[in-house]
């Protein structure tokens, strides 16, 4: 008799499990779930809230007010509108993904759906990063063409022959800022979701390997 058959015989005869009463089960129904899906959804909401708050914080500060005085609404308004449209789009996706996940799907389908949810969150973060970059570049361009102080600095640099250094410094600072923002956000993102989904990803990989073997056989 092979090992599993032997185990099967014993498995069937095992009855010494703890007895959970109806009262215990009733209590359980009112406990909160700590499932991965729930955590992903909570994190999505937190990220959504984070970017919305950042948007509002930027709106009220002095630099923004000065920026508004340059009268570049024809550039900023479409950008803001686009930002909100995409925000609503992602929020709808988060919610739809969350609702689509069913714990009575097959193991593989469930895993695929969870990973899709994760991909949506990742795309959302990438969108925000790109949006920040575009806003930053537009902001720099507007400052350089509309801000009297910056225009004066450019003229002075031009006169003294340091224009190349001036532009170079701005370019380096911009790139460093962008790199720092990217590293910080992506690092945080991979850390949080990496920990959360490590086991699930391993299991999904394993299940995929089985399916690939099937295709070959």
């Amino acid at each position, binding site marked *: 008799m*092979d*090992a*599993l058959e*032997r*185990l*099967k015989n*014993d*498995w*069937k005869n*095992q*009855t*010494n*499990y*703890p*007895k*959970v*009463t*109806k009262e*215990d*089960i*009733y*209590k*359980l*129904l009112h*406990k*909160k*779930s*700590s*499932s*991965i*899906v729930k*955590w992903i959804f909570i994190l999505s909401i937190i990220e959504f809230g984070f970017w919305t708050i950042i948007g509002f914080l930027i709106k009220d500060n002095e630099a923004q007010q000065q920026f508004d005085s340059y009268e570049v609404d024809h550039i900023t308004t479409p950008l803001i509108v686009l930002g909100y449209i995409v925000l609503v789009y992602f929020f709808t996706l988060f919610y739809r993904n969350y609702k689509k996940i*069913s*714990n*009575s*799907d*097959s*193991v*593989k*389908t*469930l*895993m695929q759906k*969870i990973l899709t949810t994760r991909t949506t969150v990742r795309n959302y973060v990438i969108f925000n990063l790109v949006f920040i970059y575009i806003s930053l570049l537009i902001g720099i361009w507007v400052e350089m063409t509309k801000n009297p102080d910056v225009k004066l600095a450019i003229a002075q640099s031009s006169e003294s022959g340091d224009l190349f250094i001036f532009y170079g410094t701005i370019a380096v600072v911009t790139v460093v800022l962008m790199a720092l923002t990217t590293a910080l956000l992506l690092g945080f993102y991979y850390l949080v979701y990496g920990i*959360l989904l490590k*086991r*699930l990803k*391993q*299991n999904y990989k*394993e*299940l995929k390997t*089985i*399916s690939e*073997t*099937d295709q070959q*056989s």
Partner: protein
Amino acid sequence: MKSTREQEFVTLVEVHQNVIHKICRLYTKSSAEHKDLFQEITIQLWSAYPKFRGEAKFSTWMYRVGINTAISLYRKSKRKIQSFSFDDVAFKIPQDDSYDDTEDQQLSAIYHAVKQLNDIDKALVFLYLEDKSYKEISETMGISEVNARVRMNRVKKKLKQQLNP
């Protein structure tokens, strides 16, 4: 006030609770983890219960939700587990060592080897031990029937090698 639906669900879980215990037994290492996973599976079952139409047997449906929870949804918590308050004396989870009271050492070694398998193989073995057909196994796992067979054979070989090096 407990609804009829709730009463019906609780009765079903009470009757079929061994299915959950068996999943917990394979996927956890301590009684605290066992309790925690038992709790999560029950919550997941309850959340999916409105969609349970009764086409499948309740226990068959439990396998699917239970395995999904163990493999995909459950997060082993590092915090001190403050799960439901079972009577701790009554809720003594039989760990593998204590299963062996009347068993020989070989059986204990088999249990140990199965627990060392990865989550997916453990699920296959679990369904196999529960006498599920390859059709049911393939439907639960989302892989083909042929594949479930191939994989089970590999697992059997792997266990054999481990037990008779």
